[in-house]
C-alpha cells in the first residue's frame, strides 16, 4: 500500500470516530467526567488505528528502531486504557481537572496527527504525549 493510500484510509477511521466525540466550545472547561470519557475514547481510537492494516502499512516504511517504538507505544496505549478504565472517577477527578489543559491539548494533537498521518514519528510523539499526561493521573506500570 502506498503512503497516500494509508493516509486516506486512516483519515476515514478517525473521521468516523471523531463524530462520536463530545462537542465543546473552544476554551470551555469540561467536567472531570467529560475529560475522563473523551480521554478514554481517544485511547480507544488510537488502539483500533494502531492495529489497522493502514498503520501496519505505514510501519513497513520506517526504520526498525521506529517500528519498535511504535510497538512499545501500542503496549502503553492498551495499558493506559485498562488502568484508566478501571479507575474510580471520584478518586482521580481532581487530577483530571489539574491536567485538563494538557489532556485537551494531547487529545487534539493525537487527532490532528492521525488525521494527517504525515509521519509515523509525528503520530508517536502525539500519542506518547497524551499517554504521559495520563500517567500523571493514574499509576502506570
Amino acid at each position, binding site marked *: *500500500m502506498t503512503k497516500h493510500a494509508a493516509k486516506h484510509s486512516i483519515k476515514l477511521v478517525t473521521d468516523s470516530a471523531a463524530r462520536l466525540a463530545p462537542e465543546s466550545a473552544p476554551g470551555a472547561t469540561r467536567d472531570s*467526567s467529560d475529560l*475522563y*470519557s*473523551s*480521554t*478514554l*475514547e481517544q485511547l*480507544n481510537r488510537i*488502539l*483500533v488505528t494502531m*492495529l*489497522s*492494516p493502514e498503520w*501496519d*502499512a505505514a510501519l513497513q516504511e520506517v526504520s526498525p528502531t521506529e517500528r*519498535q*517504538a511504535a*510497538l*512499545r507505544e*501500542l*503496549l502503553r*496505549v*492498551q*495499558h493506559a486504557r*485498562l*488502568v484508566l*478504565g*478501571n*479507575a*474510580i*472517577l*471520584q478518586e482521580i477527578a481532581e487530577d483530571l481537572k489539574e491536567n485538563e489543559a494538557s489532556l485537551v491539548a494531547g487529545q487534539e494533537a493525537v487527532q490532528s496527527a492521525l488525521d494527517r498521518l504525515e509521519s509515523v514519528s509525528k503520530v508517536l510523539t502525539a500519542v506518547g504525549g497524551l499517554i504521559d499526561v495520563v500517567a500523571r493521573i493514574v499509576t502506570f*506500570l
Partner: protein
Amino acid sequence: MRHTQVARKGLVILWAVAAGGCASARVAQFHSFAEAGRAYVKASQVVLDEAGTAAIDADSVVALRGREALDASGRRAHLIEQDKLLATRLLLLKQIGRHGRLLESYFDTLQALADSDAPETVGTAAKAAFDSVAKLSPSIKDASIGDVKVESLIPPAASFVVGRLKLKALENELKARSQAVERELALQEAALKAITSSLETDLMARLKSQQTDVVRLYAADGELGDAWVERRRQVLQAQVSAQSAGKAAEAAAELRNSFVALVERRLTETSIQQVIANINSVLDLIDQVRKVDSEE
C-alpha cells in the same frame, strides 16, 4: 441463540391464552414479562461473557504485537500487570451478571404472586429477592467500564402509577417496590450501555488485527486460495456487526419500559417482542464474531 427462540415461541402461546379473559390476561402478562426477563438475563450473560472474552483477546492481540519490543523481564512485568487489570474488569462483569440474575429471581416471584393461589410466603420472597439486588447496586453504579462511569448513563426515573389489581398481595408488592425495581432495571441498562461501548472497541481491535493479517498474507508472496477469500469476507462482515453491540442496552431499555407498562396494566405483546428482537440481534452479532474466531 436457541434459548431465546424457544422463549419467543412461549410468549406467543401465553399471549394467546391472555385473550381468554381479564384475570387470565393479567396473569399472562406477568408470565410473559417474567419470560422476557429470563430471556434478557440469559442473553445479557452471553454479552457479559463475550465482553470478558473480547477484553482478554484484545489485550492478547496487543501483547502479541508488542512482544518483540520488550525484553524478557519487560514481557513478564507487562503481562502480570495486564492480567491484574483484566481480573478487575472481569470481577465487575461478574457482579453485573449476578445483579441481572437476582432481578430474574425477583420477576419469578412477581409471576408467582400473580397466581391467585400463591402462598403468603411469596411476598416475603419478593422482598428478599429485591434486597439482594439492591445490595449489589452501589458497586456497579460507582464502576467505570470502557470510557464511561456507569452512574452517568443511568436514565432518569420513569414516572408511573401502580394500576389497581384484584390480587392485593401483588398490588402491595408493586406499590412497595416497583419504583425501586425500575431504578435497578435502569442500572442494568446503564451497565449494558457502558459494556457495549467497551465491547465494540475490544471487538474492533481484534478484528482490525485480523484484517491486518489478511492484508499481510495478500502482500506476501505465495498462493492464496478460497480460505483466504472466505476469511477476508468473514472479518469484514464481522466488523460491521460489531457496531451493533448497542442492541444489548436497547434490550435492557425495552425491558425497563415493559416493566413500567406491566405495572400500569398496559403491557403489549409488541413491547415484549421488541425485547426479544433486540436480544436476538445481539446474539446474532456474537455468533458472527465467534464464527470468525473459530475459523482462525
